[in-house]
């Protein structure tokens, strides 16, 4: 079974692609899968249920645990058998439909999910498959996604069943808390434990919610008729024969766990009969073949739920036989109604008439199915109905129950007549203008009538010889009741009270059937008046209000003003920080006295420079002054780094600060002016918020530095830097070796930022720039005419300084592993050298100077980094292991892959810096 489940999902994913090759044969190829499943299931009828488990996420108790017992088999037979027929039928019904391939894929996807639902032994797994059936149902109802009502119906089905399944999941979790296991088998064995637990009522209602939504019980019945927006083969398969029975299956499965209590025995029959009668009455107002069938399906599901609640010897037997009988006749009737629709172009039962002669095969399929549905001899439906009445009679206090069943069944039987008999035999009585094109009516190809005919044939065969089903039914009943009950299946039970109830039912059905044309319009009017109070409207209103709520809170929270977001974030953080400080208490005085020691006079000077610059930066209106102030902050911080033992940081900070200033200088006159836009009261509010945030930062910093616990990581790095990574500069060793993967991610991010700059400049501009470079090359001799007055000192100095800086950068790169330096700072210094030359001459001059585009250098750098990172893989070591050349090399010392990695970093840093700055500068010269 595990194999078939896996194969089903794989096939579902592949079949849309096969369809392009196999064309009209796809249906037959796809149907091989359910046929294979069917044959496999046949062999399993008499073998005992076994559990196969594959461990999946043991820590969560989630195992891939499969167990096929009798109850599973019943459903699995319906899923695979009807599935095969529906695939063939659907191939003809949706012929030339652009999404036919998708149809096959989705049907197979659903099929595998449904087989998973019925065979799972792990509750979490069951829930997963359960959700997958819901999703495939959503996709299939919305199959014609151009149609807004189909989309709405799909959403409705998904939301209703999805909400139910969440409730079910909570129920599962509660059972887990009681039993300590996720295995359904364990749950069944420990049913008594669950029933006495205090959680029992909650569990019962939650699981019932899951089952009732899935199986469209009152008051959740409304989604099923709406789901008829799907193409007919889908309705036949999911929304009558298989998926909607998942709820019934769930209740039957949980009968040993939850059943037998007063709550169970009262709630389920009432719910079932209520659903049956509601569906029966609502059905009268329908005239669409599919909607009629949908309501009878709801009714049948109600009857099934009722049977599970009765819980006597006949009830479960009746349930099993009824599930089979219903699958057979309802599938056939749906498929026939699809054929009628396809052939006549209408599904309106008021219009259709006299199809018997034109569509004989469809009639041959429809008639036994309708008779079986009405419960007439000698079909399987009769056997099922007799058993249902036996079960009803056997239960105590049965008078109301029997009347309810009789009324419901009578209405269902009348519906069977309207769908399966009336269109074929009715004489023409409709006015001419509403007539369909009768002359075009024809029988479809065999794919249209053979599948329903097979189903009807089975209804007849099993009706005449119900003993054929005995082993299957027995094992199913045993699986549900856990008892070995001895019984026989027979068509004729003799003149029993049940037969009398059957006769009454048929009498009622006959009356209703004949009065259809009178009843239908009246019922329609009545239900139209009642509609505003119905659950369907409640659902609509609920959804509308939910959307309104979402829009309202979005308007509040997402105002579109960055300011408000920032204020919200800061104030929330401050609020919680104050809360925590108030709770645990912080001795500020102690913190301050602790951290006041060790102040040197240049510390004071540097911090004063930073503070004054920062405050001035918020006040000034001059763009150039702001940049200068930012520079002074940056260089001061670099000095702090230098004083407190971080030479690498100081170098990088100085280099970056220089490049940032260059960047701003290049673009400054195109930046917008610093206008004061906001009003003074606004600014005062902002100052308060900013001061609160800043204050929090100060306290945070004091707290962090007062913590006395050192990081074990630090000691590890310091201890092992020389021993494991052959480098004495620990900062560089961490960057290129211990945490090399982080650095690799970082340089990739930088590369993406540079590409982003390139993309923003835009391709059209790029072309113009290339053209400009070509022009400029020709105009070099006319440099004197340039509009910018150039100094002589700078170009001369730059010409000598640049090579020196490049040399120095290589020196930094090489010494980086053992002394202050490294790829980052080396690359930045080299880029600064190039930019110096660029400012002195022109940015384009840099491009003429280097043989490759910066983009290409970046690619080379990344490739070197990738190579150095992945080289250990070739020697069988894990990714990023440092490989070292055994002997020290002249000038370089020990060499190895981490150094190569640093070279990659060096190249990338040069490349991205040049890409960013040259592009920013180029735009300048274009304006």
């Amino acid at each position: 079974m595990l194999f078939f489940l896996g194969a089903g999902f794989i096939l579902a994913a592949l079949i849309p692609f096969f369809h392009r090759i196999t064309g009209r044969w796809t249906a037959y190829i796809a149907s091989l899968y359910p046929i294979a499943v069917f044959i496999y299931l046949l062999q399993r009828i008499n073998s005992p249920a076994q559990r196969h488990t594959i461990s999946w996420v043991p820590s969560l108790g989630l195992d891939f645990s499969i167990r096929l017992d009798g109850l599973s088999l019943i459903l699995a037979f319906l899923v695979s058998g009807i599935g095969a027929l529906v695939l063939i039928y659907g191939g003809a019904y949706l012929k030339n439909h652009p999404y036919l391939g998708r149809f096959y894929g989705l049907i197979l996807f659903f099929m595998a999910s449904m087989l998973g639902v019925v065979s799972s032994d792990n509750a979490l797994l069951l829930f997963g498959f359960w959700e997958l059936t819901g999703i495939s149902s959503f996709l299939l109802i919305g199959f014609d996604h151009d149609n807004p009502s189909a989309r709405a119906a799909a959403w409705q089905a998904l939301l209703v069943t999805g909400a139910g399944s969440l409730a079910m999941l909570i129920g599962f979790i509660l059972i887990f808390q009681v039993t300590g296991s996720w295995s359904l088998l364990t749950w069944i064995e420990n049913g008594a434990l669950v029933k006495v637990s205090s959680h029992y009522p909650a569990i019962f209602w939650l699981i019932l919610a899951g089952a009732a939504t899935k199986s469209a019980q009152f008051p959740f019945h409304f989604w099923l008729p709406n789901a008829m927006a799907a193409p007919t083969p889908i309705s036949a398969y999911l929304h009558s024969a298989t998926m909607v029975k998942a709820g019934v299956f769930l209740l039957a499965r949980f009968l040993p766990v939850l059943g037998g209590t007063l709550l169970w025995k009262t709630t389920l029959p009432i719910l079932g009969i209520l659903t049956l009668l509601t569906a029966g009455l609502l059905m009268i107002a329908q005239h669409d073949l599919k909607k009629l069938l949908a309501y009878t399906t709801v009714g049948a599901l109600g009857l099934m739920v009722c049977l599970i609640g009765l819980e006597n010897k006949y009830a479960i037997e009746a349930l099993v036989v009824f599930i089979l009988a219903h699958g057979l006749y309802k599938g056939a009737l749906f498929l026939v109604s699809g054929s009628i629709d396809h052939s006549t172009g209408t599904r309106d039962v008021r219009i259709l008439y006299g199809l018997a002669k034109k569509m004989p095969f469809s009639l041959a399929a429809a008639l036994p199915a309708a008779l079986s549905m009405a419960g007439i001899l000698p079909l399987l439906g009769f056997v099922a109905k007799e058993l249902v009445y036996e079960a009803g009679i056997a239960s105590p206090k049965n008078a109301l129950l029997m009347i309810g069943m009789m009324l419901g069944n009578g209405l269902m039987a009348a519906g069977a007549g309207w769908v399966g008999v009336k269109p074929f035999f009715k004489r023409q009585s409709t006015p001419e203008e509403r007539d369909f094109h009768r002359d075009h009516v024809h029988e479809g190809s065999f794919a249209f009538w053979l599948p329903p005919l097979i189903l009807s044939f089975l209804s007849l065969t099993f009706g005449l010889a119900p003993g054929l089903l005995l082993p299957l039914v027995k094992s199913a009943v045993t699986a549900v009741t856990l008892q070995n009950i001895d019984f026989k299946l027979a068509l004729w039970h003799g003149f029993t009270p049940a037969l009398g109830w059957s006769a009454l039912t048929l009498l009622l059905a006959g009356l209703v059937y004949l009065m259809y044309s009178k009843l239908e319009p009246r019922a329609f009017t009545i239900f139209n008046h009642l509609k505003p109070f119905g659950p369907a409207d409640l659902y609509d209103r609920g959804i509308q209000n939910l959307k309104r709520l979402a829009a309202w809170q979005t308007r509040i929270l997402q105002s579109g003003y960055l300011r408000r977001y920032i204020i919200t974030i800061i104030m929330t953080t401050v609020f919680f920080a104050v809360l925590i400080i108030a709770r645990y208490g912080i001795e500020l005085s102690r913190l301050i006295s602790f951290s006041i020691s060790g102040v040197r006079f240049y510390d004071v000077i540097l911090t004063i420079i930073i503070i004054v610059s920062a405050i001035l930066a918020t006040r000034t209106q001059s763009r150039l002054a702001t940049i200068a102030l930012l520079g002074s902050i940056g260089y001061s911080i670099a000095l702090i780094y230098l004083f407190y033992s971080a030479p690498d940081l100081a170098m990088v900070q100085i280099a970056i600060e220089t490049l940032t200033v260059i960047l701003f200088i290049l673009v400054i006159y195109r930046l917008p002016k610093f206008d004061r836009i906001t009003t003074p009261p606004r600014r005062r509010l902002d100052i308060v918020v900013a001061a609160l945030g800043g204050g929090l930062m100060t306290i945070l910093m004091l707290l962090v530095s007062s913590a006395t616990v050192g990081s074990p990581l630090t000691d590890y790095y310091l201890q092992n830097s020389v021993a494991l990574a052959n480098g004495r500069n620990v900062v560089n060793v961490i960057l290129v070796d211990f945490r090399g993967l982080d650095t690799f991610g970082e340089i990739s991010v930088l590369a993406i930022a540079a590409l982003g700059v390139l993309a923003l400049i835009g391709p059209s501009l790029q072309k113009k720039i290339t053209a400009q470079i070509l022009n400029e090359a020709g105009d070099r001799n006319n440099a004197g005419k340039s509009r910018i007055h150039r100094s002589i000192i700078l170009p001369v100095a730059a010409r000598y300084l640049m090579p020196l800086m490049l040399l120095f950068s290589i020196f930094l790169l090489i010494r980086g592993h053992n002394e202050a330096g490294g790829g980052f700072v080396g690359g930045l210094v080299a880029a600064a050298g190039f930019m110096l030359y660029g400012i002195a001459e022109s940015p384009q001059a840099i491009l003429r100077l280097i043989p490759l585009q910066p983009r290409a250098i970046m690619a080379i750098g990344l490739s070197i980094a990738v190579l150095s990172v992945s080289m250990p893989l070739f020697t069988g070591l894990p990714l990023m292991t440092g490989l070292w050349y055994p002997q020290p090399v002249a000038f370089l010392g020990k060499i190895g892959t981490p150094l190569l990695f640093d070279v990659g970093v060096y190249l990338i840093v040069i490349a991205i810096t040049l890409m960013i700055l040259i592009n920013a500068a180029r735009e300048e010269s274009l304006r």
Partner: protein
Amino acid sequence: MTLLLAVTAGILFATGLYMMLRRSLVKILIGLLLLSYAVNLLLFSSGKLTPGKPPIISFTGASIITANYADPVPQVLILTAIVISFGLTAFAVVLILKAHQTIGVDDLDQLRATDVLSEEDHTRELDLEEIDHCESEGDE
């Protein structure tokens, strides 16, 4: 010194926040830069401030006394943060330039055409038209 550094970082953070609360695009960028200075200082102070003992192992004996050196971990974090924030700044500068050229405004409040919910639809379309118009001009 820790106290001094904490106060400095706090003021940097406050000025950065204040600038980020402005409506002018460039001021927001400046705010971002100030914030990143402040955060780097926060990281820096999370290691002990140790003058004159950079984490460069001076001898290669078997036993290395680790307590003396400055903590390398925050330094590594800051180093990458500095370089990344340069990438961020560069990208933001070019983005602001491009936005300024295309839309022609600097006020953040006038850049809301794309993310406002249920504003009157007609004003929204008008804005978009303007943008289209500006773009076609910008390409010329």
